[in-house]
């Protein structure tokens, strides 16, 4: 089965973390970027032709992904393509996924061999075996398969696409951009579609000035009885990192063994760009408890319930609690940090004190000194 992958880098924002990068390139889990999970899912399913649709701020993403070597995508045929906005649509970039697809028609229609398309976003992280989703889609005979997760809808969180099923598993209701109630399933923004059908539907939608994937194609199509929808329920860990609070909670939940096991080893390894860092050194007086620690760190101080990325330095007497500390950040002697997210390359001067709250962690921007 030839399958093409399309990754949307998503333009939702996560506070200051998306100031100079896309959602897809937000660092996560000590050594990854959001997009690594989507890429690794596609890689494991044998997808060798992947397009990455990106609107803005894609420099750090391109730098991270390079030629896609780590995910087996450095190929002569197929491989990886960056589908950035065309200059001709200078008035606006893309208004929705369908519009961005319509400008990427050349990519989409290149070669006839691809039969199915997996569309995947980069705000929802999972370690999912897509071969099962692809098989379920073929077996269903429906137009679209939506991958969903139960237990996400809670009546408060805004859900891109919420779906309600009856006892037979048939769709009875759909809601878009709505704080759906608990008995709805949340879309994980992963779709499987037949390529030919997607191409035709996209053209038709655009002709009617409809460009929103969830609202116009999936929900609108289903309501008009034009589109049949199959729902695949994923039972592993799905992390919705759509706000700073969610990002922070999800990061710290990685210290739970079952969460970590499922996200990092669930169906397959998660691949990322290789950095040749030495193993982490734990000093004479360090005290590290309940932490996820990447390579290359120099730890002389204390850390508890935190995620430490690569090449982090914690000096003697510093105390770090419930924090996410990104690459190359240095925490000076005697500094005290609680509920803090340090972006890359931050310097915390000796004795500094930063205390945030669980709901509102302090974010220190990349490269700053505090």
């Amino acid at each position, binding site marked *: 089965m030839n399958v093409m992958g399309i990754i949307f880098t998503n333009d939702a924002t996560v506070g200051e973390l998306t100031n100079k990068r896309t959602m897809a390139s937000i660092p996560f*889990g*000590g*050594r990854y970027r959001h997009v690594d999970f989507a890429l690794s899912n596609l890689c494991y399913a044998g997808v060798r032709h992947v397009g990455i649709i990106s609107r803005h701020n894609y420099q750090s993403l391109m730098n991270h992904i390079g030629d896609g*070597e780590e995910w087996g995508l450095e190929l002569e045929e197929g491989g990886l393509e960056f589908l950035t906005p065309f200059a001709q649509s200078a008035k606006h970039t893309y208004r929705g996924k369908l519009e961005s697809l319509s400008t990427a028609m050349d990519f989409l229609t290149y070669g006839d061999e691809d039969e199915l398309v997996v569309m995947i976003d980069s705000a929802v992280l999972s370690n999912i075996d897509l071969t099962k989703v692809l098989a379920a889609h073929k077996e269903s005979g429906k137009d679209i398969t939506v991958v969903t997760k139960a237990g996400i809808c809670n009546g408060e969180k805004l859900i891109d696409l919420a779906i309600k099923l009856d006892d037979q598993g048939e769709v009875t209701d759909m809601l878009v951009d709505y704080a759906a109630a608990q008995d709805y399933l949340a879309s994980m923004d992963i779709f499987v579609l037949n390529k030919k059908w997607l191409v035709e539907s996209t053209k038709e939608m655009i002709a009617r000035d409809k460009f929103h994937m969830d609202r116009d194609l999936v929900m609108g199509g289903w309501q008009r009885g034009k589109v049949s929808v199959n729902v695949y329920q994923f039972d592993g860990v799905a992390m919705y990192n759509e706000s700073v609070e969610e990002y922070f909670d999800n990061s710290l939940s990685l*210290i739970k*063994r079952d969460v*970590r096991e499922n996200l*990092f*080893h669930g169906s397959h*390894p*998660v*691949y*990322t760009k*290789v950095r*040749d860092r*030495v*193993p*982490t*050194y*734990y*000093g*004479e*007086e*360090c*005290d*590290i*408890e*309940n*932490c*996820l*620690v*990447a*390579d*290359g760190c120099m730890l002389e101080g204390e850390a*508890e319930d935190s*995620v*430490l990325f690569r090449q982090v330095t914690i000096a003697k007497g510093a105390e770090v609690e419930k924090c996410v500390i990104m690459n190359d950040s240095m925490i000076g002697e005697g500094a005290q940090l609680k509920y803090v997210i340090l972006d890359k390359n931050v310097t915390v001067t000796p004795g500094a004190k930063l205390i945030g709250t669980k709901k509102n962690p302090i974010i220190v921007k990349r490269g700053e000194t505090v």
Partner: protein
Amino acid sequence: MYFQKKRVIAMLLAGGQGSRLKVLTEKTAKPAVPFGGKYRIIDFPLSNCVNSGIDTVGILTQYQPLELNEYIGNGQPWGLNKTHSCAQVLPPYERHDKKSGWYKGTANAIYQNLDFVDRFNPDYVVILSGDHIYKMDYAAMVAYHEQHNASCTIAVRNVPIEEASRFGILNTNPDNSIYEFEEKPAKPKSTNASMGIYCFNWSVLREALITDEEDSSSSNDFGKNIIPMLLNAGHKMMAYPFDGYWKDVGTIDSLWEANMELLGKDPAFQLRGDKNSTIYARNSALPSSYIDEDAKIVNAFVAEGSEVYGTVKHSVISIGCTIGKDALVEDSVVMPGVVIESGAIVRHAILGENSKVCKNAVVGGAFSAKDKKKISVTSKNAVVEANTVLKPGDML
């Protein structure tokens, strides 16, 4: 096929068994033995090549090559897979004139691969071995060689006079030119020990290898045959003094020591490096390590993908290891994939890849004053059963 002419290429001798590493090299060639948490011994000479601007490396393999070949692969981790660069594995092979077969000695290994070297028509060939831990700029050595207009330059380090009889000793004139070579002399005249790192003019070495091959009494060895032959023939040979860290990790004791020398705030050997002294390794896609709330880690390295629930002191824990609750690991080298179950005690030990120390087992112990180093060793995949003891100095 087009081959770019190279000024310098390197030939890395990686075929030795390393029998003094005993159970650790039963199924692995010495250069593929894990070191420093995430590396293998061969990463050091290979990374040195890359950091010295040498982009063409022939790797001569013979003993137990499966793991080593797999590890080197296409040379991608060291950036040696580009258009005009390579990490070419060169195993022994069969040839029509029967002048082939197993590599008879270090010189014969290069002799059998004259064709490989000739393709690049190099000015200089650097000969390296895959059993030392060090960082060295070979480009500086080649520049020194060129500057002195030598036929051969040998890297040397100063060793204590009482240890000198364990090494090949180079006796030099005040200008560092070599007038005599003595292999393991009983009464050493100098303390310049050969490091087994040579730089040759390819034209000189090529001829010497052919001459040496014709001598059926030769043991086809660089130290025993090629160097004395060139000295006798009056070639200009220089000693290149090197005073950085360098360690032959050919024995259990020295392998253990070299790992221990990575530790501390100001270690004897600094693994960390800048862009020009990074040691590259093949990476496994492992997540970050998890350090439990009951874990205690003091003066130790822990590499990626490990889970630590117990106590680790003055040790190197490699990638993908598990240290169970209430377990104690002290003064030990724990190789990749090792599992130490709860309550186990490991001291002064080297635990081979994927070996397992089950619940409440005891491996090794304190060094007694009498016999200082008694290091316990487990081989690859070995299992120390629950509640059993592997005594100090024992191997499993």
